[in-house]
């Protein structure tokens, strides 16, 4: 009997879906949100304000809000990079790989996503100061997709670099 070529894909997607729901459920719990996600988001806002203050004066962060005399941006869930990290973690957990490979992937990928997210927040803040309509468009259409694309690109590169190695060796 020939194996179903779609089976590995279906298995991966099922594992990915379950992992995504479980990770979301953990992150959505009120204690986790209040004691981990919100402080982390405030830290992201603080780092963004620090980066922005090299371009212009008067940019500060208060909690999760980045503000200047001309514009204020509240960094919320969905804009803190956590959603892309969740997707990446779910994909890495769903893919067959060694624990070491997974840990390397998770570490490197999370840092890369958060660095890219800082660039996103800086660019959105600068856009928001100058044109609100372009800000809305770029916020929803461009940067969200780019962050997730970056996460998927990192996952695909990781799967080529680490996860497929044992398979190649065993052939």
């Amino acid at each position, binding site marked *: 009997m020939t194996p179903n*070529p*779609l089976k590995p*894909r*279906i298995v*991966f*997607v099922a594992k*990915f*879906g379950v992992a*995504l*729901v479980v*990770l*979301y459920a953990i992150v*959505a719990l009120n204690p986790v949100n209040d004691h981990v996600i919100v402080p982390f988001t405030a830290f992201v806002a603080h780092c963004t304000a620090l980066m922005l203050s090299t371009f212009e004066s008067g940019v500060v962060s208060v909690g999760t809000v980045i503000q200047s005399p001309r514009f204020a941006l509240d960094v919320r*869930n*969905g804009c803190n990079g956590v*959603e*892309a990290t*969740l*997707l990446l973690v*779910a*994909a890495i957990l769903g893919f067959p790989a060694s624990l070491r490979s997974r840990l390397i992937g998770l570490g490197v990928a999370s840092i890369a996503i958060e660095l890219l997210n800082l660039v996103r927040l800086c660019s959105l803040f600068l856009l928001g100061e100058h044109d609100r309509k372009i800000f809305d468009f770029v916020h*929803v*259409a*461009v940067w*969200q*997709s780019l962050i*997730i*694309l970056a996460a*998927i690109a990192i996952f695909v*590169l990781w799967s*080529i670099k680490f996860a497929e190695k044992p398979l190649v060796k065993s052939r």
Partner: protein
Amino acid sequence: MPRNLWSSLAKGAAGFLLGLLFWWSLSTPYARLLATLSEPLIRISERPSVTRLIADGTELTIDRDDFPRSSPRPNLLLMDITANIILLTTLFAVNRRPVSDRNALGFLLASLSLIVVHVAAVVMNVESIYALRLGPWSAVHYGPVARNFWGAGAHFYSIAGVFGAAFALWWLFRPSDRSAAVSAAGSAASRRRPGKTPNIRS
């Protein structure tokens, strides 16, 4: 780094712009389609059926026959719900042979599946508005379990599900490297020997 990085980036950029164009230009007619498909699903659980979804540009206005005439109608923004088509188009554009029949078929199937996902997301969001945002009316008509279920479902979609769905559909429907290679070899063999069926071993 992969050798074809620049080619992938160029294909990805083209796919991204194409997806953006799709999403932007078709959002108004697509809102009407989503209203038409979602409304009957919401009305299934209603006795009597009172919900009406009215497409208004890129938004859905949620109306009910039992709402007081003077009260404002809640709106649902569709652009956030449907933005994952940009991601899906980009991912299919980056595949090895983006204009091959197999890739086009995969993209078509994934896009059709994404419509189902969008309909589910609209239903989830409308129910979440009913369950959480209509004050005392919500508390009377939705219990704690239902409120958490619809609220968490809509929140999950907006945070993780919207792009997770596009990624999962791409993963399911993208042509495998092996089938792409077979397709390419088949095309090459057909070009060499017109009229003969290529005999391909994989």
